[in-house]
């Protein structure tokens, strides 16, 4: 399915889901990248479902296509072919503007390098999605502070990100991903820069604050130290799903 061909209106309101119901439904996802004269197929017609109320890992070696898959699932990279429904909305049938709005309302992102804005304080960083939705800075910061308190860094709200440790910055990134109460939370290698203990603590924290009955949480990782904390694991190899289960297969 090419982006250019998507012109029809799609439903704007996402359907309510209960625990165990499908939050993301991906069908026949294929993605090609141009590399000079040749075309490289990174994803080969993947079918996958992500369910609400679960902490789902997307696992695979570097180059297996997990980041590409997750980018397509959360609406920031168009598939070459296939369809993605997020809470019942065919997101690639939306216009560019509608898709951006959809992401702003329904998806929270936690990036590997946090990507916090260095010159605004912690509360403002956490409040970015609210500010982007047009909420006043003061009100947005107040709402973000509530979440920062919940994440035990409320006392750091007025500091700049550079004054915080890596773990604390991670929490600010989590707060930013959750402050607008999205239905889907996407985390890219959240434990990659952390030691084993901190990594488990962050994952526990994500489970505590990001997993809810009507919310899906996907973690892209290759950190085998936290595999046991997943509710469900999708294993990707060479652009294909080779395992879908509650635990890692023994040969990994």
């Amino acid at each position, binding site marked *: 399915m090419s982006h250019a061909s998507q012109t029809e209106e799609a439903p704007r309101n996402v359907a309510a889901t209960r625990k165990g119901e499908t939050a993301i439904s991906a069908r026949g996802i294929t993605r090609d990248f141009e590399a000079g004269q040749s075309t490289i197929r990174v994803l080969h017609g993947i079918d996958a479902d992500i369910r609400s109320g679960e902490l789902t890992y997307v696992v695979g070696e570097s180059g297996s296509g997990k980041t590409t898959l997750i980018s397509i699932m959360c609406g*920031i990279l168009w598939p070459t072919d296939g369809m993605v429904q997020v809470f019942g909305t065919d997101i690639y049938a939306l216009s560019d503007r509608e898709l951006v*709005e*959809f992401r702003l309302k329904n998806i929270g992102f936690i990036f590997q390098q946090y990507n916090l*804005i260095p*010159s605004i304080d912690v509360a403002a960083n956490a409040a*970015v999605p609210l*500010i982007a939705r047009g909420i006043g800075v003061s009100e947005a910061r107040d709402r973000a502070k509530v979440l920062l308190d919940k994440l035990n860094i409320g006392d750091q709200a007025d500091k700049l990100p550079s004054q915080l440790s890596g773990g604390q910055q991670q929490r600010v990134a989590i707060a930013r991903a959750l402050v607008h109460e999205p239905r889907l939370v996407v985390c890219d290698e959240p434990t990659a820069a952390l030691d084993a203990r901190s990594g488990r603590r962050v994952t526990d924290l994500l489970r505590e604050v990001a997993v809810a009955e009507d919310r899906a949480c996907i973690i892209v990782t290759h950190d085998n130290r936290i595999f046991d904390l997943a509710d469900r694991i999708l294993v990707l190899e060479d652009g294909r799903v080779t395992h879908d289960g509650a635990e890692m297969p023994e040969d990994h």
Partner: protein
Amino acid sequence: MLWIAIRMLTGDSQKFYGLLFGIAFSTLLITQQLTIFVNLIERGASGVYNAPEADIWVMDPVSRTTEVTYAMPSTALDEVRSVPGVEWAVPHLRAAASVRTASGDLEGVTIIGVDDSTLIGMPERMAVGDKSVLSRPDTVIVDDVGVLNLFEQDQDPLGQRLELNDQRAVIRGVADAIPSFTSQVTLYTKYSQALNYVPGTRNRLTFVLAGVATGTDAETIATRIEQQTGLKAETRERFSGAGVDFIIENTGIPTNFGITVVLGFVVGVAIVGLTFSLFIRDNIKQFGALKAIGVTNGKIVRMVAAQAALVGFIGYALGVVGTAAFIYGFSGNPFFKGFYIPWQIPLISLGAVIVILAITGWLALNSVLRTEPAAVFR
């Protein structure tokens, strides 16, 4: 989001001040150089401005400006006076002479001979003394360039004697005059006295200054003078314009100042473009994250526009204030006397700043808009 954009920019103080410097420097260079250029070429009309009573300047047809002249027979004065519509007409002499200063130096000067009885042809104001002193024998009034060039800093010019073309001249006043384009010393004296100072030639009447009757159009009378006398007659406005045009056409000044202004623009584009690009490059991950989170390209454009507007406004203000400070700081120097900033020049530099920011902002923005949101996962 504009609040975030401004904080992103001001939070990176090195680049923020770099951008301010680039804009301020460009504005200063463009505004200051254009100001000097305009004021300098207007000096080509200083001879006209210094004789404010004259509505019409009558001269030999080959004369072009107050500095480029060919003398007329003295009968020209009566011819002009006989033209209907001419209220009054007085002789005006301009000639070059040499002065031996007290320190033994030789200084080239311009002698201006003004009408003996009315003193028409003198600058409107005096810096020191009164115009009436010209009635005293051998008297000359010097301009403030002369005070600076002919005398020591703490020396009082009043009462000083000069050897002017081998004749005695006594300074008894200082005129508040606009310096000439070449900033040459000017000595004012009575027309009859000036004839004594200027080496004898058959024709020595340089100009006839004429006033027109109230309610009469100067252009019409000038045309009438030309038709009736065969001389060249220019209104005050046209003759001052001719002086300016002469400078533009016969000197390399427009080219030189033009090059400097263009350099100011290019330097602005280079500094601002480089700094803005670095700023955007340093924040490309943040912009990518914002795009992924759900900030539209439209909002990103407005964010970068707000950043450009902020540095543009502050940098431009600094540049214009810097130019004003320069003009004010040098206002006591006779060479910069009367310099002002024409209102068009800040508008021109504002236009240049807008173009600089539009070019550099667009270049910087382009990389942000081309960044895929998915890039933040790589």
